């Protein structure tokens, strides 16, 4: 856990570095991870600046230019209602980033405490929680999200909540496993001996130590949230037309696959690139935080 700092004209000096800084130093050398970070930052900026950089209004209908192929004024072409695809893809970045973040916030805020308390207490509460987690994980992938949407009704906010709920058991199981091994360690013992209560032990001593795996999982979870949201939008269960959401855009354009391949190509490329960014970043962070890989 040391870093060598170059002092001007002096001998290298050994200083202590924080864990985050060490992880960053490690991560910085991972080109794929940096590429991922770059992609995500790019899409974040695009999403934030959408009103400024979009060349057209993403909701402006122009039937005369329906399904127009890419031209210099609209390089991604136009969709079935003559709306500018580039502007719609740019606005879509906004929605997809938001979905990813909200879903992960729901998953982390519910799943992490649930997993930590379940693992710390053990016994009956643990058993019950884990059976509920079992049942939730018994629905493969997008299916549980579909079930929840069937209850809440179709729409973007409902889809976000559904995707968030789906990620709760993932965090609960992950953090529970970590807690089980942490709870047996000496520093937790020491905290208990000094009279710390359950809340303090779990939230001050155990949870910070699970942060690394939670961060890695969250990065990958954003990727899967964006994919699931797009899937729901595509099936007509998520964002509804005319919302400029990538999945919903694909759903509208798919009937014109023959006439206007561009309307199908670009939203999908946007989804793939964003998800790829988060996957690369997740892999990079995992490598950086993995103690076995550390110098």
């Amino acid at each position, binding site marked *: 856990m040391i870093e060598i700092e170059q002092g001007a004209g002096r001998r290298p000096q050994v200083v202590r570095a924080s864990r985050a800084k060490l992880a960053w130093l490690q991560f910085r050398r991972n080109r794929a991870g940096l590429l991922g970070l770059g992609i995500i930052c790019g899409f974040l900026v695009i999403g934030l600046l959408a009103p400024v950089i979009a060349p057209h209004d993403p909701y402006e209908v122009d039937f005369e230019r329906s399904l127009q192929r890419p031209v210099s004024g609209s390089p991604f072409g136009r969709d079935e209602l003559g709306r500018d695809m580039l502007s719609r893809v740019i606005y879509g970045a906004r929605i997809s980033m938001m979905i990813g973040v909200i879903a992960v916030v729901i998953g982390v805020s519910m799943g992490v405490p649930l997993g930590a308390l379940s693992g710390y207490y053990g016994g009956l509460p643990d058993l019950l929680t884990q*059976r509920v987690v079992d049942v939730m994980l*018994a629905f493969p992938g*997008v299916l549980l999200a579909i079930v929840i949407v069937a209850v809440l009704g179709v729409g973007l906010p409902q889809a976000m909540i559904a995707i968030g709920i789906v990620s709760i058991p993932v965090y609960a199981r992950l953090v529970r496993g970590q807690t089980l091994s942490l709870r047996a360690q000496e520093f937790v013992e020491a905290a208990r001996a000094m009279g710390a209560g359950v809340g303090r032990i779990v939230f001050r001593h155990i949870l910070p130590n699970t942060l690394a795996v939670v961060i890695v999982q969250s990065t990958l979870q954003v990727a899967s949230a964006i994919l699931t949201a797009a*899937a729901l939008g*595509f*099936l007509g269960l998520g964002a509804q037309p005319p919302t400029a959401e990538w999945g919903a855009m*694909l759903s509208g354009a798919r009937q014109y696959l023959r006439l206007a*391949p561009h309307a199908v190509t670009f939203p*999908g490329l946007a989804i793939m*690139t964003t998800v790829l960014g988060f996957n690369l970043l997740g892999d990079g962070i995992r490598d950086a935080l993995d103690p076995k890989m550390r110098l």
Partner: protein
Amino acid sequence: MWSYIAKRLLLAVPVIIGVAFIVFAMVRLIPGDPAMVIAGQAATPEYIAAIREDMGLDRPLLVQFGLYFKNLAVGDLGRSIRSKAPVTEEIWARLPNTFRLATASMLVAASVGVGAGIVSAIRPYSLLDAAVMVAALAGLSMPIFWSGLMMILVFSVILGWFPAFGTGSLAHLVLPSVTLGMTSAAIIARMTRSSMLEVLRTDYIRTARAKGQVERVVIGSHAFRNALIPVITVIGLQTGTLLSGAVLTESVFAWPGVGRLLVEGILTRDYPVVQGSVLVVAFVFVFVNLAVDILYAVADPRIHYT
């Protein structure tokens, strides 16, 4: 080992009951009156009352719950609101299609994934390895419904090699199964590569090479067999990916499977159909996972289960 199998079977029971309970609660949790939601806004009060009675929604909750489990036990999933046919029949008619798609996809995923993983591991950090790993990561990041549309565009619209929609011939199966298998192939390739690389570092591989064993045997027999166990685990875990992917793939390729039945059910508010198909897909998932776990116990004599 028998006690392990018995234990796993017993542990599956609460999961199955839980799944059945969630599906039961699903319709009852719909905000407002589910019968009204199902009937739509323009429905007459008589029609709404008929649906309510038909689904047993007019009875006390506890009675509904009992009836639901009683019917479930004899395989009665109710009747479709749209077609009036028993849901069980509709699902039975579609299930073989979903299994056919899933099996073909699994074959694609396992052969492409394992093959690509080995090729990558033989020359790690080479250009070929980098290409395979980039392709795998791209495969992981691609939305399955989009790759399906792109497949249709390239191989059906432009090249005209395969039909884009429907079932019937083996040619109909090609595009959907490749689409569905791609994500899993990517995951399997990554796992095969890392597992192979780990094994290739071991002493017995060095011994095999030192004694002059030809490389083909070292890779194919010594390394691959030992690298296979985590790979099989991952292949087993892919059933979930395949089942949920089937919902999307079937929608893209108009494949008449259970996944499409489910989506149509939700869009037309045909809740008995939704309940039935969710239940069937989740049950299949639980049982396949169970079967995979039990197969390990049978297949790998080194692992002891208690």
